[in-house]
């Protein structure tokens, strides 16, 4: 066991977990943040995507023991951050995914939304090619992607207004 000091969604969390656990395991099974999904658990699907210092990263292939100095954002962090910044309703990207019907089972959504968040933070007005490339590490077995891309376009427009 090791005590990890993690910066999760703006809070400092001290949590004891086996030293060899992945960030995904610590988030899901120690901290109770189950929004980050455990899909393939080996880097293929992107369902476990979190942001480390704003950069999309696979939690299933990150050791908790190597991310203590990074600010970790999970899907659960978006709404509180949006509200803390004076926003109303849902986070604009989450809202756009909802309005576009960009989900069916929803398993890919946390990862998709975080990849989209990181893209829009860097590039508020992406081309459709840039959107596709930025989401190309997130697999969706249900939607066929079209409405997901539309949601990112809508979120980009919304953020400009």
């Amino acid at each position: 066991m090791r005590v990890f000091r993690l910066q999760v969604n703006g809070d400092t969390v001290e949590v004891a977990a086996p030293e060899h656990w992945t960030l995904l395991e610590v988030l899901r099974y120690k901290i109770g943040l189950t929004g980050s999904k455990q899909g393939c658990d080996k880097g293929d699907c992107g369902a476990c995507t979190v942001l480390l210092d704003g950069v999309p990263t696979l939690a299933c292939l990150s050791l908790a023991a190597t991310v203590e100095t990074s600010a970790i954002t999970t899907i659960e962090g978006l709404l509180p951050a949006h509200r803390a910044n004076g926003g109303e309703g849902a986070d604009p990207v989450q809202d756009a995914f909802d309005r576009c019907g960009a989900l069916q089972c929803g398993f890919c959504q946390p990862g998709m939304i975080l990849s989209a968040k990181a893209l829009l933070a860097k590039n508020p007005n992406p081309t459709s090619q840039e959107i596709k490339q930025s989401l190309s590490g997130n697999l969706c077995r249900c939607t066929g992607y079209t409405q997901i891309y539309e949601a990112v376009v809508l979120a980009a427009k919304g953020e400009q207004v």
Partner: protein
Amino acid sequence: MLRLPKFEVKNPSTVEEAIAMMHAIDGEARFLAGGTDLNPNMKHRLFTPERVVALGGIEEMFGITQQEDGSMRIGAMATLANVASHAELGLAYPALSQAALLVSGPQLRNMGTLGGNVMLDTRCQWYNQTYFWRSALGFCMKKDGTKCHVIEGGSKCVAAASNDTAPALMTLGAELEFANATGRTRMPIADLWQADGIWNKKVAHTELLVAIHLPKPSADQRGAYGKLRDRGSIDFPLFGIAIRLDLDAQGTIFDAALCAVALQARPWPLKKAAALLCGTKPGEESFTEAVEQVAALAAKQCRPMPNIPGDHEYRHAMVSVYTKRALLAAANGDGPVHHV
């Protein structure tokens, strides 16, 4: 759910500390860079070290810097995303930046490092599987077993070098700076490989790749990378080919290099093919003819095996196609060559 085996994690802050931690244990230890190869392999019980030495705190191993003599030093911990988005690297060494850009998907490029890509384990469809899957098959020579499922009765593992940046670094004549218990060494990347899929490198796993050095490019150096894969993202190469062309002031090629990957244990330099390009001039018939000859020769010299996924006859049919397209892309300053 795939659990990691139990191990302890060390977080050194210098190269010397990392080497010491690697040796100060009776059992096995492994270096961890981005973890995008080591972690899946540990989850599959292909490696079960007792200690993991994580390299993320070693400042010396980060950064991409031009040296006074015009060469470039890339810290082994530079991520593939760093390499792919570095403007000067893209201009000076297009094959490398294109290869880095085509590795897996965005998240994996944010995590995966150039050093980890050079040191990548070889891959095989009978090996990169869970313990349960492999046990059902009766294992294989590379791990836990005695047989090879690719070459019946074969005595040597032929798992394939599948690292996209390796052929690019080969064409560029990169030098690798290693640290080990006795100090530092530098070796040309061409000397790193051996024809053994079980461990395809001449350095031990306890030696630390600190940096990759790229020589100053010639005045008109061009390059490109071509990659065959099933999908436009995430997938490892089914075949990859890197090109370097050096042109003189008249636009005639005076030096060239080609190197292929995803065939066998070593990245595969195509020296005879490269020689056919010298003396030809892009835009003229001499070059067009040479491209056809090179593509035909590449198809003779590159023989994909059923070691990695993908029909090997299809992969073979694509060798000349990708070689030709990558050559034209290099000459025209385009690339990368891939299907999406």
